[in-house]
């Protein structure tokens, strides 16, 4: 596993589906889950929508 440049061996016994290139969530030396890139984008978009909604709500100059 590469953690922002730090390389560390972790067990993927709990997430056997993990492949090289995937992002996993690591807890005490074990990957316990995977990051779903599409869902991550969706959550970020949700934050983004809020920004857009705020901008739209601001009174025109």
């Amino acid at each position, binding site marked *: 596993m590469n953690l922002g440049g730090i390389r560390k061996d972790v067990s993927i016994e709990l997430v056997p589906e993990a492949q090289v290139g995937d992002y996993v969530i690591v807890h005490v030396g074990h990957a316990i889950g995977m*990051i779903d*890139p599409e869902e991550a984008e969706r959550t970020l978009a949700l934050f983004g929508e809020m920004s857009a909604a705020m901008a739209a709500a601001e009174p025109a100059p």
Partner: protein
Amino acid sequence: MKYIDEFRDGEVARKIADRLAIEARGDRQYSFMEFCGGHTHAISRYGVRELLPVNVRMIHGPGCPVCVLPIGRVDMAIKLALEHEVIVCTYGDTMRVPASDSLSLTKAKARGGDIRMVYSAADALTVARDNPERQVVFFAIGFETTTPPTALAILRAQREGLKNFSVLCCHVLTPSAITHILESPEVRQYGTVPIDGFIGPAHVSIVIGSGPYEHFAEEYRKPVVIAGFEPLDVMQAILMLVRQVNDGRAHVENEFTRAVDRDGNLAAQQKVSEVFELRPSFEWRGLGEVPYSALKIRPAFAEFDAERRFGLGYRPVADNKACECGAILRGVKQPTDCRIFGTVCTPENPVGSCMVSSEGACAAHYAYGRFKDIPVVTA
């Protein structure tokens, strides 16, 4: 780092804060408990509290593994090291938890106990393989996140036929602790701890899924929003909770969809149920004895159970009288309500368990918030 930096963007945090300020109704108070120590840490570290409207209050919950570990359990590990002369392996945070006779595992190590800090349960197994002439005990603590790795270690020890490895199991369960809080007199009768909803744990939920919280939402009419550990996740979850309260809804919602689904990690759950079974009762620091709130090793794996192998009994020990950890863990008091906070009790010399781990309410406030409310006095 990807999937971290985007969730710490200060500009976006301000926008969510603006939205919260608009949507939180001025005519009412909102009190939400963040159950998990990871959220407590994030809230303190990133100043999330300062971004919230004044009528939205966060209450720290008991979801910090070392904080809820009672003195009597640490005493058992110390006894193993000093009297049974076994090698005790444990996670770093556990080393400094105050125990009886002014001891901790760190201090017991200074007295000659062979106590070693490990990064994972698998490392404890390595210690056992490397020291076949010694008994090695892994002092296992934590919630549903650390339990699957402990299960894997026991299964592997069995496969390898290791005769010198056992586990002092102190694993505890999140849902039973939440039930206990909701059933507590402070919440139910006196209303001294008003709770309008919960931020559900991030990593625990990866393992157990969002399903187990549905009971709280339905039975107790409390909304639960599962959130990631980054500050934007927490802000967004608070906004989702405010919206549920405003609408009179009490549902389980999931902000952390990038890692949590309804069922959780089934492979991990399977390993846990293979090795562990429910303990009828377990003492938590702060909460007292909580029924069916912890796990013990199944009889089929008895040879890996340190409590059986060494005939250890549990003896409850009262906390230091001056320490308010118990009330803080129940959400009744804040760290600053404690007389010894930041004076006698500091992270360098913790009196109570909440000052030990960076996830503890006291340690988090000491590290990131104490200068806001302690007056500056010139010598």
